[in-house]
């Protein structure tokens, strides 16, 4: 059985080396101690109340041995842990910088050329990347198991992650600092693209890099966007009220707003709520949703609305 996730960055094999090293030391020590424990229990089992036992209280040789060996092992483990950590935290030359903003419960990524994505990070393979991260509210933590990198994200200051992805593909991002009721849904994806493909994506030439095929029905595209764009963190599909209203039965339902007025959740209302979520606040919910203006194009919004219509 596999005990480590995919290894997809230059740092990953280094972390794995330390993990293997300590695992081997631990397993050997455990077997040694476990063996001695059981061996002594069997060999020196009590035979009668009059068993004679020697009053051994010291043994300089043994005591030196079990002080020196653990000390040496600790030094070795420290050094490997330190050297690789040092390499990981050193700012790479010509690093490609991407800004990351965390907010309950969505990750936003800003690229050097002004492009912006939500819940999905695109990076070129085999190029040093530096994430410059900050939080708009509570603590979060950016964790990509496949890259073996993790860093807390804090308000009012910046923290950093350096990595070079070595494998193309799609990898999960977890938030690993507890941040409230949707903490475990605060996920994102990293897409590692070949450099040329990445440049195309960045310049907007290939509008759709995601695996949404153009011949997919609209509601299926909407379903994909629901999880890719972070809607899933706050809006349930089963009628349970989360941070935001459930999407189940939402289409054409009567919504009562905080100012006392009400309206039916038709196509135009849904579109307005996606682009300007603060305009019409439904009673019982807080103004926490970010605006998706510029993050979803018109076709994508239509797809989401079509998807909501199917949730009866």
């Amino acid at each position: 059985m596999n005990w480590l996730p995919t290894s997809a960055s230059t740092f990953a094999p280094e972390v794995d080396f330390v993990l293997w090293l300590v695992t081997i030391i631990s397993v050997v020590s455990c077997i040694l101690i476990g063996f001695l424990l059981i061996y002594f229990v069997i060999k020196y089992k009590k035979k009668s109340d009059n068993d004679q036992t020697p009053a051994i209280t010291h043994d300089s040789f043994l005591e030196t041995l079990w002080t020196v060996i653990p000390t040496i092992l600790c030094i070795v483990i420290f050094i490997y842990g330190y050297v690789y950590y040092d390499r990981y935290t050193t700012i790479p030359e010509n690093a490609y910088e991407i800004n990351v903003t965390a907010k309950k419960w969505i990750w936003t990524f800003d690229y050097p050329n002004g492009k912006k994505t939500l819940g999905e990070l695109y990076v070129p393979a085999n190029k040093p990347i530096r994430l410059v991260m900050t939080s708009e509210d509570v603590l979060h933590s950016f964790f990509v198991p496949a890259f073996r990198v993790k860093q807390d994200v804090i308000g009012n200051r910046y923290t950093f992650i350096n990595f070079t992805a070595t494998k193309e593909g799609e990898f999960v991002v977890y938030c690993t600092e507890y941040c409230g009721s949707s903490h475990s849904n605060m996920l994102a994806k990293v897409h590692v693209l070949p450099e040329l493909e990445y440049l195309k994506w960045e310049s907007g030439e290939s509008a759709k890099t995601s695996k949404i095929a153009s011949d997919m029905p609209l509601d299926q595209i909407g379903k994909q966007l629901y999880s890719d764009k972070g809607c899933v963190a706050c809006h349930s599909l089963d009628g349970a009220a989360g941070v935001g209203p459930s999407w189940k039965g939402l289409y054409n339902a009567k919504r009562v707003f905080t100012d006392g007025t009400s309206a039916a959740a038709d196509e135009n209302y849904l579109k307005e709520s996606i682009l300007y979520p603060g305009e019409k606040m439904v009673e019982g919910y807080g103004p926490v949703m970010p605006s998706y203006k510029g993050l979803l194009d018109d076709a994508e919004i239509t797809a989401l609305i079509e998807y909501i219509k199917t949730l009866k």
Partner: protein
Amino acid sequence: MSQSHSFDKSYLEDGTGFKSWFFTHDHKRLGVMYLWAIGIFFILAAIASFLIRFEHLTPGQTIVDAQTYNVLFTLHGAVMVFLFIVPGVAASFGNFLIPLMIGARDVIFPKLNLYSFWVYCAGAIIFLIALAAPADTGWTFYTPYSIDTGANVILVTFGVFVLGFSSILTGINFIVSIHKLRAPGLTWDRLPLFCWAAYATSLLQVLATPVVGITLLLLIGERYFGLGFFDPAKGGDPVLFQHFFWFYSHPAVYIMILPAMGIISEVIPVFSRKPIFGYKAIAYSSLAIALISFLVWGHHMFVSGQSKLINIIFSVITFAVAVPTAIKVFNWLWTMYKGSIELSAAMLYSLAFIFLFTIGGLTGLFLGALAADVHLHDTYFVVAHMHYVMIGGTVFGLFSAIHFWYPKMWGKMFDEFKAKIAFVLIFIGFNIVFFPQFILGTLGMPRRYFNYSPEFATLHQISTYGTWILGIGFIIMLYALLRPISNKAEANPYKSASLEWAMPSPPPTLNFEKIPTLTASTYDYGTKLEQEA
């Protein structure tokens, strides 16, 4: 409230009714009451953990919603830490044993001791009231979440603040008692290792607890008056809170584990009929661990955004604390060498402690190594590591103590056979619950996650099934302990050389009719060999 000065009545028979207990100055009665109290809170917090594990039987919602789950893990952690394991062995067995072991009639400040217990009760009541609007912050109360959340954080943290005083006052009492009340001939190098451990623990309680008290007051100030020390929106620094919090909470880890190590050092020699191996190494390593433990708090914060240099320094010191711990394990092991080993229930728990604590300690090396911690931090690996130390270590130590001193405490004998069945179930169940969590952690499963991806389901399910075995083990253990098979215990059924066994079981209220004079070590077992002496 009248204190009998006769020595023919045991402390349990000396007065009955609520008042005779709640106003007692007797360290033994206070120890027993602490034991009941921590036992009840252990069960409460354990029930929360069973619900947490049940929730993880399937990805997504199984029995509770996300918010309830967050409340459950906060409740589990906060009750286990502040009401069970921090007072834990020190307040219960420390109170019961220290005066007996040092040859005294009570602790040096008996009234203060009673007051400590009342403060503990007050803190516990505040905690229980706070359950009406339970906090959802996790037991660590990290800012700014704990400033923003709508849940009732003030009452819980105030409860912890009050409990801190109980801890400080008990610590002072033990330190002074061990300095001033040792019987003639009980020199420092003859002092039982449990007392050494309790002494080191008390130092930590007195020196570290005020810091968490002040921190939690600041947090209350943040919420109530909007102070802004920790709130980034006001220019504060949330990481500062973590520094303050772990400056207490890391030494607190040793407040939890040191007394258990003391118990192991008492139990193993008795059931091996051997003097403890390396007495001085164990005694001094307790102090060394206590001192170094003040300097490693930053290893909880390797990915918090603190500076790289600080991380490297904390990593070095963390590895330094591993060495005295390893020395202790080998000393206990070698105490058994050429002994006459009896596998009583108490001894089984102590042996399990050595093995499980070794796993807990070794997995700490993963987390101390910087590069590995970046991957493992805040995953299930940490959860598993911490439970191997806290359950495999402290709780197994406590269970060993409950079985070992049972005849002395209650004057009764329990059924060893039933207790051993319970041990087997608890040992197996514990490992099934927590070992898979190491693998969940290396695979990248974050902690405090209500929802998880289906690839983790099998390991989560195995872990949940383990809790059922563990639970059955707990119930059988309770049954064995609550249904004694004999109402007459000998003064010294296990033939221990330690002072607390040199009196009837249970002891009379004032312990010693005549204060004893010691002429030998408390670990006076076996035949002295010429060359070894």
